[in-house]
């Protein structure tokens, strides 16, 4: 056999709002993997958290019992709990006692749980979908697409415009929450329908601003509910996904919504653990589907767990990183467009900023991730002008920190918001609450990136891209920026003198333009 030696299989466990699920897989050197084993048990963490705000003692105990049995299962593959990747999603994320839960799990089972953020969830999901559809790349790139996953606590949505991320959202509507709504309000089934329709309509109206939904021709749904639907109705089946006709999907969703969980178990042969979510889950999916122009529903046979596995398996993969960078930038640009930003200026400043970043590698000592944050900040630095030109940097900060950018975590988004905030006027100061609220490392990153962004922005002061490109030259404590293009750079010089203060403070270099 020619495979590389000694590879321990990987184990990935997801603590979700309705279940705790595991996969064991083997990585095959080329960034792919093959699944060896899977298991899953229902969990009531979601129900606890979405009603009471915390995980009950019983649910904690049950979770630990499940994880202990998974530990036993993993022993059969020689995998220790420490070596397993364990993530928790929306339910635990929102639990008031999440730290206690994580701690108890760690002490009693040896598993270390990392609670991931909603945006990271989207990222992993995208990885999984991309992997499942890799043999059929055109599915994602040939048209506009929506990727949807209805979970217990949240619904994750991604919009792709010809393969480029046009929007990424996490909506606080999920099957367990919906069920709780029905139970708590004692509402009639009809009102549930109304509730869902209202919620989905509001969400779709927002999405329309990013991408006209009737232009969405590819509708991709992830999750157990959709997989079940695809397995019970006429479908074209492929290795990693199935394709179902729009009408068939809608019809099945309608039928499932009319069934009680008991009937789901009896008539559709659905396990109990999935029966409760089936109706609401499919109903939400159907409502989204009907807003799109898709004729078919693509149901990949993957979950966030496969995404995590891919992220683990791939490690740093330049090609993949580049793809993710493109998607982050595309998502940032989509946000910018929503607020009618100056696209050319934004892109140009981003390119200049990245050129500066790359030329100053030795000075800032930052990596690819920060480069990505710089790019996003540069694209969005002026986005606040939508509200008002005066003080627009502060508006930018507000818009960014309250939006979602595909592939960025909440913490990273805050960094981007801060960098945009400091692209003009006052540099970071101890009196700026949003700045001092950042962890120390992030404050330094913000300072460095803002310094670079201010210089880059100065170089396109006229929003006319007169500086087409730059070359950098170091002379002792001076940085000479040689501009390509127009010779009349007086405006830019003026601006640079005004905005390079932070740059000098941070890098100890005096910037000049020639």
């Amino acid at each position, binding site marked *: 056999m020619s495979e590389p030696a000694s*590879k321990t299989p990987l184990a990935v466990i997801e603590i979700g709002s309705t279940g705790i699920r595991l996969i064991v897989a*083997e990585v095959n050197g080329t960034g792919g993997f093959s699944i060896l084993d899977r298991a*899953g048990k229902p969990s009531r963490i979601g129900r606890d958290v979405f009603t009471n705000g915390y995980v009950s003692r019983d649910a904690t105990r049950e979770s630990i019992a499940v994880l202990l049995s998974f530990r036993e299962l993993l022993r059969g*593959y020689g995998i220790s709990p420490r070596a397993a990747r364990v993530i928790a999603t929306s339910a635990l994320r929102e639990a008031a006692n999440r730290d206690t839960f994580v701690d108890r799990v760690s002490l009693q089972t040896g598993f270390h749980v990392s609670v991931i953020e909603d945006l990271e969830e989207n990222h992993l999901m995208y990885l999984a979908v991309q992997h499942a559809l890799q043999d059929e790349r055109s599915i994602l790139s040939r048209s506009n697409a929506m990727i949807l996953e209805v979970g217990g606590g949240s619904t994750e949505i991604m919009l792709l415009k010809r393969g480029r991320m046009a929007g990424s959202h996490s909506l606080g509507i999920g099957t367990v929450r919906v069920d709780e709504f029905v139970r708590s309000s004692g509402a009639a089934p009809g009102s549930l329908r109304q509730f869902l329709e209202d919620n989905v309509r509001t969400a779709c109206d927002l999405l329309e601003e990013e991408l006209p939904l009737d232009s969405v021709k590819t509708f991709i749904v992830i999750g157990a509910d959709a997989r079940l639907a695809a397995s019970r109705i006429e479908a074209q089946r492929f290795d990693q996904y199935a394709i179902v006709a729009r009408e068939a999907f809608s019809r099945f969703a309608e039928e499932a919504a009319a069934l009680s969980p008991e009937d789901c178990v009896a008539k559709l042969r659905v396990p109990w653990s999935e029966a409760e979510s089936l109706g609401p889950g499919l109903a939400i999916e159907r409502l989204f589907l009907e807003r799109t122009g898709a004729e078919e529903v693509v149901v990949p046979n993957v979950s966030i767990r496969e995404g995590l596995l891919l992220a683990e398996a791939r490690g740093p993969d330049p090609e993949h990183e580049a793809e993710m960078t493109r998607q982050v930038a595309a998502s940032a640009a989509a946000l910018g467009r929503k607020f009618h930003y100056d696209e050319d200026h934004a892109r140009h400043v981003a390119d200049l900023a990245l050129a500066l970043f790359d030329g100053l590698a030795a000075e800032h000592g930052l990596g690819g991730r920060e480069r990505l944050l710089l790019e996003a900040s540069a694209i969005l630095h002026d986005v606040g002008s939508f509200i008002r030109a005066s003080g627009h940097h502060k508006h930018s900060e507000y818009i960014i920190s309250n939006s979602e950018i595909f592939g960025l975590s909440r913490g990273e988004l805050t960094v981007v918001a801060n960098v945009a905030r400091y692209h003009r006027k006052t540099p970071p100061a101890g009196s700026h609450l949003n700045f001092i609220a950042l962890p120390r490392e992030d404050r330094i990153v913000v300072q460095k990136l803002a310094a670079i962004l201010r210089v880059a922005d100065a170089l396109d002061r006229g929003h006319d891209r007169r500086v087409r490109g730059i070359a950098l030259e170091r002379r002792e404590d001076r940085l000479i920026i040689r501009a390509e293009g127009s010779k009349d750079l007086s405006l830019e010089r003026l601006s640079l003198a005004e905005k390079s203060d932070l740059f000098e403070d941070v890098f100890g270099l005096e910037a000049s333009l020639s």
Partner: protein
Amino acid sequence: MKTKRYFNRELSWLEFNARVLDEALDSGTPLLERLKFLAITSSNFDEFFMVRVASLKARIASGDLEPEPSGLAPAEILAAVAKRAKEIVRRQYDCLLGEILPALEREGLAVVRPSTWTAAERRKLEDHFADLVAPLLTPLRVESPPEPGASASDGLPGKSAAGDVFPGSEVGLSDAPRPLDLEGPDASGKNALAAHDIPSIGNLRIHAAFLLRPEQRSAPRGTSADRGADRGAGRDADAAKSDRLAVVQVPPNLDRFIRIPTDAPGLRIALLDDLIAAFGQRLFPGYAVVERLLFKVTRDADIGVDEDREDDFIAAMEEVLVGRQNSWPVRLTVSADSERLAERLMRLLGLGIDDVYTLPGPIDLRTFMELASNEGIAAIPGGERLRYQPWPPIQVFEPAEDSTIWDEIRSGDRLLHVPYESFDPVVRFLEAAADDPAVLAIKMTLYRTSGNSPVVRALTRAARNGKQVAVLVELKARFDEERNIAWASRLEQAGAIVVYGLARLKVHAKAALVVRREDNGSIRRYLHLSTGNYNDRTARLYSDLSLFTANEDLCRDASVFFNMITGYSTVQELRFLAVAPFDLKSRLLGMIAREAQRSSPESPGLLMFKMNALVDADTIDALYRANAAGVRVLLNVRGVCVLVPGVKGLSENIRVVSVLGRYLEHSRVFYFRNGGAEEMYLSSADLMPRNLEKRIELLFPILDETLRERVHEILAAYFMDSAGAHSLARDGKWKRVEPAEGEKAYSSQADFYSVVKRRRALLEEPPERELPVRRRPS
């Protein structure tokens, strides 16, 4: 006449047992094998009454009078069962007494009953009884309801303390346990026992019953005098009214067959129960034995464990085992010695005349199996010729010297056909897993296996060697529960993870999975899936098919399957394996429907199924629909088949055969022509609602083309069989399949053995002659 859509299940079962009996009636069958088939017929009956008849009676008792799909109401079925069962039993005893026993005597093995004991034999046997048997006996006096004509008040004069009833010391029984007094009304006048039943009479145990009469005068206790009192005494009505019933259990731990010392050639054998009946009067001093009888009670064994008792399932199971000994009676089998006693026992047990089987010969032929196996051989010079010519199991799957079993399985799937092939590869598979340091884990289901089996030994060793051993032990395997509990605890002590079955579902699937870390660090799994149990003993008698494979897809499914049944996971859908009670039935139905869809007059569909029982109405309806679409359906059903074949407009394209023979046909095979893209599946499941809905069963595909062809050949052979096959007619009668005019009988089983021999011979060809032969990956 309106044709039925389904036969009745119980009546179809009786026809199966009649086919078993047919093997005994067949003079072409060797003598000792014939005896064995007689014994099997009896033990089949025992199980049938304990389970099927008991549940029928329970239905009637619960007021369920609904006719079942065959159109018969429970009471009608019960009456028909009694009628047919008695016919079969009559044929069975005609054969035993008219042919088998006389033939055995001619071969030098005489089973002698009391009427043919010589006086000398009688003396020797009486000594034997007094020395070795009587001390172990515990007579029970039974309160019996008054016989018709006798009033309750005068039924039992002289009731006294227990010690007075049968003062054992007088017959030298001082060491014996004190006789148990089971008289009903106690001092307070309450009736301690239900009128109907004698609970201490254990299920299937042989007992002797005696009708006793107090002696008027002190009679000498000599044998002949007793016999005289017994036979000749002129009884008047008063004496008869005071007759008492006593019961003695024939000790199950003593050999039933007693060699009578003799100088003559050949062997003479007396039956222990005959001794007890003949000399039992010694147990009752002061009484004369008026009548005597041997009998056996069959009780309801269809009592399940309380599935909701999760606290200690093993304890609950043990209670069931005790309960089975005392559950309510369903049948009474008696010797033909005393109508009066039979009548009394019948009333005591609350049974009707239909439930009483009076046998003209020795009762309980089950145990004659022993005689057919060992004793017979020992007794009869050249006894081998009275048995089937031996077909020692042959080892075909054997790793070459420079390779391991893992290499072999990785290089291609392997099929094992036991008992033609040896079961050893399965044992070696597990032993290799136990000893191989690279093996991480073994997961396995165990349904019926013996505690001392090499399978359990290998698993125990593996656990001791630090492997993760996870075993699902099905405690609920009927009639095997006791044994299972014992060895399962031993496995657990060795460090294995033992799962004691699943609530409400019997795990009937047979699978073993070995997880191994290969030299390059990757994980590789090796899987064995079978139609038969991991039991090295039944693997010598049951014909089963099994598959060794390292196919990743099958192994992945199997891993998830084990996660489901060991509690790691909820039910998940699998891609290649189908699991009952989840999707096995729907997949089968789907594939039958597919066959119907793809069938056309130019290219008709073909289904070939083999199983032990075909009862599930949904499946049968699907087969009828396939029939309507022109699909040819060939069914080999060993046992119960409620499908009605050969009816125009319903099933004219369906043919049903049943093959019996020296081996019990146990494999379940499902073949779909599928428009030329043939599919072949093996399964642990029979097509009965029980299997499809209340059990964990597996259906697995044979993906390797060569192996698929081999299974196809095996499957097709049954439909050509003219040696052990019966064919089912639309009226429910089975007819022996005769060889075509001028042709020799074709035995599928004999053919399977010769195929295996040929495959072995190919392996042994010397290397230089191997060149033209081409070893097929078997």
